[in-house]
């Protein structure tokens, strides 16, 4: 199959992109689509970030100063939906589009037209979601988890919320199919599965997770829709339905979703740490097995989000033990990254710095995750700021730092120029310091008894809230520097990057020129059968 594509292209292999808007609207080139995904994700990151800052500004001192409670709830809900579905997931799909073909020696993604479709659905979905802010009754305010019966009280925004979630799901499913088909069919001839780079592996696993759970979410929200408009009572106790069933279905989607957002970051870090340690990745195969185990376990732990709904004891015990088990493969990954650095010759360019920050701070998020698995303690932690601290530690210095590391790592390959290393390091330090100032005090707030999703709080929570708010504003402003660095790099103001970019990195992406030509690997790369790809 890849041979056929290669032949078709070899006759006019110097052709570049179409000029003007057609290049983007009709895009089928994986690099163009990857770029669009990344830009879209950055825009959404700032929209969601702005909402986070509204939340933190209101929470700066006790008392209501800036917004009303209902608008506050709209902000928490929209912040989460936009960050999860608009920022983190599309960022990783963007990276997948750009890098997977380059890393496996394929000329493009397997299904380029579907690729176009899956991207262009997203701006539509988020326009619909964003427009709900201006509808009567306001935007959805029942939390991103959309628990009934509360979510059914949403105003005119309700059907638009459901429809936009459907669209996001469609986009993700198409993206996932594309990734799977590409990886399974279009690898370079000698690249056996276990020779694939970790980023490709983690994305393959992620794509299967997406394929498995996005339809579940679509089903759940469709049942919400019929409950509201067509007289069904799936989740309404008064009609014989069960509000808790929604939570089971939602978290059957929601927990794998957590790994959908972190596994590609694991892959990114597994590419970067070896490069800057100048050592091969330690335990490549056990990393693959660990990621697969995490993916499997993610399907049988969902009810740990629901330890206070009143499950039978045996159910609670099962979900506690299963959840604790996840610590084992996750630990294996952390230990393998540490072993990769061990006795290496490390240098600390920005991608490495973000990866190291990931390593430390994601592990802290892992520790609080382990604590949350312990049911008796979780009864205290549940729905408190401790949970907010936990998932922001795994999502911000976890997923988002993973994306940042990836962007710094591969940007010279994309643009042909280095970013400004000094500014990159400043961006790293500001981000790392402020992320801790923002989220670490939230552990204390939660333990001291502050519930999440409240617009105002008792005065004993004032100090840590002020610190967290100050940190959030600092973190938000630091990200403007990131935009500046990216724009500078795209406008080619930095030093010219060589083909290898870094010091002898491993992987096929470093065998094509920088910037990567519009068409790459029109004939599959030849690699001697014995050589290790990773």
């Amino acid at each position, binding site marked *: 199959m890849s041979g056929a594509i290669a032949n078709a292209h070899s006759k006019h292999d110097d052709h570049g992109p179409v000029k003007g808007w057609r290049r983007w609207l009709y895009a089928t080139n994986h690099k163009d689509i990857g770029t669009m995904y990344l830009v879209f994700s950055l825009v959404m990151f700032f929209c969601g970030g702005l909402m986070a800052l509204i939340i933190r*500004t209101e929470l*700066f001192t*006790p*008392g209501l100063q800036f917004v009303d*409670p209902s608008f506050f*709830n709209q902000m928490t809900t929209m912040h989460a939906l936009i960050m999860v579905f608009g920022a983190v997931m599309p960022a990783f799909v963007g990276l997948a589009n750009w890098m997977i073909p380059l890393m496996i020696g394929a000329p493009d993604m397997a299904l380029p037209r579907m690729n176009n479709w899956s991207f262009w659905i997203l701006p539509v979905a988020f326009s619909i979601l964003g427009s709900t802010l201006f509808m009567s009754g306001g935007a959805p305010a029942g939390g991103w988890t959309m628990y009934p019966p*509360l979510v059914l*009280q949403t105003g005119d925004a309700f059907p638009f919320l459901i429809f936009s979630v459907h669209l996001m799901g469609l986009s993700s499913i198409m993206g996932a199919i594309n990734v799977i088909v590409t990886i399974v069919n279009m690898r370079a001839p000698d690249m056996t599965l276990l020779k694939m780079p970790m980023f490709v592996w983690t994305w393959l696993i992620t794509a299967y997770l997406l394929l498995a759970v996005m339809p579940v979410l679509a089903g759940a929200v469709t049942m919400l829709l019929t409950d509201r408009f067509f007289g069904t009572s799936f989740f309404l*106790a008064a009609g014989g*339905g069960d*509000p*808790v069933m929604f939570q089971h279905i939602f978290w059957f989607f929601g927990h794998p979703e957590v790994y959908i957002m972190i596994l590609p970051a694991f892959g990114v870090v597994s590419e970067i740490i070896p490069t800057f340690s*100048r*050592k091969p990745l*330690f335990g*490549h*195969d056990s990393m693959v097995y660990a990621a697969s185990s995490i993916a499997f376990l993610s399907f049988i732990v969902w009810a740990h989000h629901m330890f206070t*709904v*009143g499950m039978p*004891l045996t159910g609670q*015990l099962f979900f*506690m033990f299963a959840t*604790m088990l996840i*610590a*084992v493969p996750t630990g*294996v990954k952390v230990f393998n990254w540490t*072993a990769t*650095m061990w*006795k*290496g*010759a*490390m240098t600390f360019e920005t991608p490495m710095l973000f990866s190291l920050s990931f*390593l*430390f701070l994601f*592990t802290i998020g892992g*520790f609080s995750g*382990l*604590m949350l698995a*312990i*049911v*008796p*303690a979780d*009864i*205290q932690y*549940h*729905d*408190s700021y401790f949970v907010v601290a936990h998932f922001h530690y795994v999502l911000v210095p976890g997923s988002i730092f993973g994306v940042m590391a990836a962007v710094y790592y591969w940007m010279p390959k994309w643009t042909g120029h280095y970013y400004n290393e000094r500014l990159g390091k400043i961006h790293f330090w500001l981000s790392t310091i402020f992320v801790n100032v923002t989220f670490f005090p939230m552990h*204390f707030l939660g*333990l*001291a*008894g502050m*519930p*999440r999703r409240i617009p*105002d*709080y008792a*005065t004993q929570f*004032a*100090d*840590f809230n*002020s610190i967290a708010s100050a940190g959030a504003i600092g973190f938000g402003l630091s990200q403007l520097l990131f935009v500046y660095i990216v724009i500078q790099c795209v406008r080619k103001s930095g030093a010219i990057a060589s083909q290898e970019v870094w010091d002898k990195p491993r992987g096929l992406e470093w065998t094509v020129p920088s910037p990567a030509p519009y068409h790459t690997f029109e004939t599959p790369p030849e690699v001697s059968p014995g050589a290790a790809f990773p």
Partner: protein
Amino acid sequence: MIRKLCTSVLALLIAGDAFADWAVNMPKGVTRLSAETYEIHMVVFWWCVAIAVVVFGAMIWSLINHRKSKGAVPSQFSHSMIAEVIWTTIPVIILLIMAVPSAELMIKLEDTRDPDLTVVITGYQWKWHYAYQGEDVSFYSTLARPSMAARRRNSGIDPSTVENYLLDVDNRLVVPKGAKVRVLLTSNDVIHSWWVPELAMKKDAIPGFMNETWFRAEVSGVYRGQCAELCGMDHGYMPVVVEVVEREAFEVWLENEKGGATPVATASGELK
């Protein structure tokens, strides 16, 4: 807005004492199970600290010593079966050590048999309703007036001047000290969650469901908590206040309530 923030910062610095309550940990609470919950929380926490010392220690050691600027020459080893087995096995053992006491405590938490008193708690948007089963005593519990006035946007009332801001109610749930109180939870509209940190008790109030849990408070006093499950606009304004009193005082209070009067005894604070 910036001026407001600045004044807030200033106010915070000056009135530091008013806010100063740097609680950083879970309360030990006033029931035996809350103390055990605290114990488990701390045990797991210290395990995490110990693991962090080892893992972060190794990372930091490596970061300091294995850097190119120090002339490190990279080794090329890339796997070790023994290492993988060791760092898979040890976490499993540590997890088992944590899991056993947790499971034991869970069994105790679920044991709602033989209660001395049963209270049916119903969640409403946005207040609680308490009914003492078999006693013909029931009442609503809503946010206290001083907080109600101060919570409005730009109310002009400094929350730090309001006693127990957002954590005070008009009618408290009164229970006798040392009695096993069974709590039955349900809701009239959306899902709420009844949480009192000092009692280590949190359970969802779900429409159509009757959830069950219990506590036995060993120390008299007033314990405050909040609704923990997002329940709409005023989710942040439906506190839970439990007053634990001596058994005799409780009997007196219960008799007064049965008199049919609206409950006033607890609004002013201590029971007489």
